């Protein structure tokens, strides 16, 4: 009587490897929020470029500067862009402070500041800073 040859298979030799989906970030709510958060970078970039444009204009003399102020005050494109950028950058700030609470938690002895309080405190700082910026912008 012949005995069947028994071969111990190597683990994994017939594993099925699932392919990674190309558009993965629509699959979960957490992934979508992540993408939204990362997208705020576009508005950080665009507005910072606006500030850079202004600084360069100022360094190039009165004509260049007045042209920049004119666009900043009257361009509809800038108006809509600034509004959208404002909300996206606020979202950036909030999510940034949420991340901050995770990476560098604030501790007073045993008490750890909860994330919501950490974010609220920092957003309060943003308001105070905005008031200072306003003071210098309006004519302090």
């Amino acid at each position, binding site marked *: 009587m012949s005995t069947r040859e028994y071969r111990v298979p190597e683990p994994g030799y*017939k594993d099925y490897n699932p392919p990674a989906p190309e558009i993965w970030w629509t699959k979960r709510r*957490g992934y979508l929020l992540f993408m939204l958060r990362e997208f705020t970078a576009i508005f950080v970039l665009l507005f910072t470029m606006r500030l850079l444009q202004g600084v360069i204009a100022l360094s190039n003399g009165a004509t260049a500067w007045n042209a920049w102020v004119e666009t900043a005050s009257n361009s509809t494109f800038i108006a809509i862009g600034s509004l959208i950028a404002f909300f996206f950058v606020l979202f950036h700030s909030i999510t940034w402070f949420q991340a901050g609470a995770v990476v560098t938690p604030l501790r007073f002895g045993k008490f750890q500041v909860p994330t919501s309080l950490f974010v609220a405190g920092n957003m309060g700082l943003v308001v105070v800073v905005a008031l200072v910026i306003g003071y210098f912008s309006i004519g302090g």
Partner: protein
Amino acid sequence: MSEKRKKLIVTRYNPESDTAPRTQVYEVPYEDDTRVLDALNYIKDVEDGTLTYRSSCQMGVCGSCGMNVNGTPRLTCATFLRDFEGDITVEPLGNFPVMRDLAVNMSDFMEKLTRVKPWIIREKEKPLDEGEYLQTPEQLQAYRQFSLCINCMLCYAACPVYGKEKDFVGPAAIALAHRYNEDSRDEGRAERNAFVGSTTGVWECTFVGECSEVCPEGVDPAAAIQREKLSNAVDKLKSFILPWGKK
């Protein structure tokens, strides 16, 4: 009394005869306290003895029963049928090669856990007659959370970076490295840096944060990774500015 029944759509894969996974639908009776794992046990006992899956403690401490339930990595012993409306899809844990039915190949994960050197590393071992290491409650708090990992791999299943880049060291392994780096008895951060701070280590992570979302034990591996990024970046900065200094 009418019996409640639910349909489970379960992934089946027989490496001897299939080239790709398929699904099989089972209908199971359930009560308020029936978990997905109980449903799988019922299927194996009564309907289909060929169904293959892993489980052990059935109470959320061993980490064996992780699977994708309706697309979300869950511990099936902690996932109740009553919480789902409609049919329930049970798939093998995401991002891992499938060995058979619902059992995945854990080798990559196991290998990475070892490579972070998850033990106390000392420059000089403290001799026994010098007594035990003393640790204050505050020192324990610094790493305790990260020691709670049950190696269930749900975080790897949830991580989109690991989904695309199998080289990524991954959440649980880095959280484990962090647990030792933050232990006051340990002196091994520099030794772990080579692996943890490598280009396939913390620097692959983009802080999506889903790993911490799905973690059943509250380890918060995302926090561990970001903190390791900070200490690793500062270490690199220090060695750049003061190359003669001790790392």
